[in-house]
């Protein structure tokens, strides 16, 4: 029996308008997210991870256009919502945290003010009550001395502490979904582990669904139930985590995993995937990974493969084309 998903993304396309020219950076992304599950979106820099996340909540910069698709939250298409409907969902039902926690907080407002305004934007509660809740939240995310810290400004917090504040803010209204865009990238390694631990604990406690964006497969392995591999604005492979890490189907995923394993074995030589990620804007007719793929055939550079279903996995590669297909 399948549960109806809490978030469904269908053929989401996002482009940037540049000098009267449309540059498609997200070329039709589809997935569904079930309640309480953690989906990792993995990809190299520029693959469209952030753009996709911003698109979900219509937070894209002015130069970006959503050129197609749907984002359904509990059946409601967020891309067709009014501004006020969207506002009521942002922060309350779907919360988001970002890569650079120090830049994500307003430098001239106290941490308390920023927490309180979030609560009061969605609930009609008094300032005092909101302040009490804010203290509880700061305590919950492991900020010592929360009463005092409430009146401090972001510059008085370290990066890791700022990210804890961001998490507190995101959890303030017990959202159904948390979108975390590389939440630990800007932090040093020990702090990374603490933040990840915290997120995982809170995710389980609140039963939230999480979209965890990262370029680091090891982090994805640590937290995710499902993994979606993004490359050049396209989903290359989507699979349950245990399958993807043991039996990666796509050569790109295999390459990513190969470099990951070698790092953990501390080999001298780092077998990275040769070549560079595609320059967005010049979409190739074929598979965007073909130029870097050791197993590429003629067909790969001429025709873009569709996503083939293989059990519970999806893979965009001609090598995985089911036999007997009419293609």
């Amino acid at each position, binding site marked *: 029996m399948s549960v109806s998903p809490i978030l469904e993304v269908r053929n989401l396309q996002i482009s940037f308008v540049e000098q009267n020219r449309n540059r498609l950076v997200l070329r039709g992304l589809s997935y569904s997210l079930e309640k309480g599950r953690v989906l990792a979106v993995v990809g190299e820099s520029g693959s469209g991870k952030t753009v996709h996340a911003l698109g979900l909540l219509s937070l894209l910069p002015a130069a970006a256009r959503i050129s197609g698709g749907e984002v359904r939250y509990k059946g409601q298409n967020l891309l067709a919502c009014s501004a006020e409907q969207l506002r009521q969902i942002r922060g309350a039902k779907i919360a988001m945290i970002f890569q650079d926690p120090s*830049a*994500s907080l307003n*430098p*001239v407002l106290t941490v308390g003010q920023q927490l309180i305004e979030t609560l009061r*934007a969605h609930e009609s509660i008094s300032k005092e009550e909101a302040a009490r809740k804010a203290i509880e939240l700061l305590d919950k995310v492991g900020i010592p001395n929360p009463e005092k810290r409430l009146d401090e*400004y972001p510059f008085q917090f370290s990066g890791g502490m700022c990210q804890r504040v961001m998490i507190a803010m995101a959890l303030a209204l017990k959202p159904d979904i948390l979108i975390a865009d590389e939440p630990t990238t800007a932090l040093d390694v020990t702090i990374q582990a603490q933040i990840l631990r915290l997120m995982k604990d809170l995710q389980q406690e609140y039963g939230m669904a999480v979209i965890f964006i990262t370029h680091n497969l090891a982090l994805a392995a640590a937290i995710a139930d499902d993994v979606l591999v993004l490359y050049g604005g396209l989903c290359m492979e989507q699979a349950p985590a245990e399958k993807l890490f043991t039996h990666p189907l796509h050569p790109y995923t295999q390459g990513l995993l190969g470099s990951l394993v070698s790092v953990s074995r501390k080999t001298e030589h780092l077998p990275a995937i040769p070549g560079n990620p595609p320059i967005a804007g010049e979409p190739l007719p074929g598979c965007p990974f073909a130029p870097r793929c050791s197993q590429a055939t003629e067909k790969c550079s001429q025709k873009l493969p569709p996503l083939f279903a293989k059990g519970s996995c999806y893979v965009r590669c001609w090598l995985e084309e089911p036999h007997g297909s009419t293609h």
Partner: protein
Amino acid sequence: MLRYIIRRLLLLPLVMVGVTFLLFLLTQRLSPEMRASLYVRDARQMGALEEVISQYGLRDPVLKQYGRWMKNVIKGDLGYSPSANMPVAKAIKEYLPATIQLAVVTMLLVVFFGVWFGASSAVHKDKWQDTLVRLVSVGGFSLPIFVLGLLLLMVFYGKLGWFSPGGYSFQTDLIIHGVSFKTYTGFLLIDSLLNGQFRVFVDVLSHLVLPAVTLCIGSFALMVRVMRSSMLEELNKEYVRSARAKGLYERQVIYKHAGKNAIIPVITLASIQFIRLLGGTVIVETIFDYPGIGRFGVLAAQQLDIAGILGFSLMVAVLFVVGNLLSDILYTAVDPRIRLE
């Protein structure tokens, strides 16, 4: 904070000495006879030049003369200004409040409209509101102040008769120099209210309108640009995106979040403009026959009134230091990251 203020105030004498000593050196280029002649009105007394020179020690070494001037300044005596026909200290006390009044009203207009127009221009970037504001501000930039002043005078005084030049009307002059009018602050706008003379207040304010509007235009154009670009920059920052992601209302995002950050450069600009207005409203004061300190300074300079020039520069130096200090303090109120130490 207090230590910072004290330290900055200790700097004050240094700036004062620096400015006035340089000017003093310049005045020594004039021969003692020329300097003495300023105090000799009557042609028949020209023979008394030597007397004046020796009486005031105008042939003494520079440092000695400067020391003597400084000693008097410390006692509160800035010398006699022949161009204003009164002691320099009295002239400043009489003319400075009128200029401060004008500068304050001007800056209130500049900051209020500059911030408002600049912010809405940024929020509606490339829409008609933005185009309109930019047109107005370019116009303000390119219009010379004396042309605008004369135009306003022609229209609102000459044609419509709504406003008149000068600092106040004849009736006001009678009231404020009458026995029952008490001077509390020297600022007519305040004193009139304290005396319960509301008509004087309105009269003084109406005489401020044309010069203030004229002074406004140039500063306003700059203010709009600074506010607009500062606001545009802030609106692109990450904290604005996360404020939206939290589900705040758009007006909270714009005014509370971006606005509070965007206003910071405005404070710098406003304090620079304010200080400049205090020493430099000469053209406007002349056009509108406004009894301010700028006119005193120009007259002193034209007539080589050395005591007047020195006193005027000393005043500007003091205002400069104090004004900067005030803007620093204002900063800490807006930007918590700044700690004065």
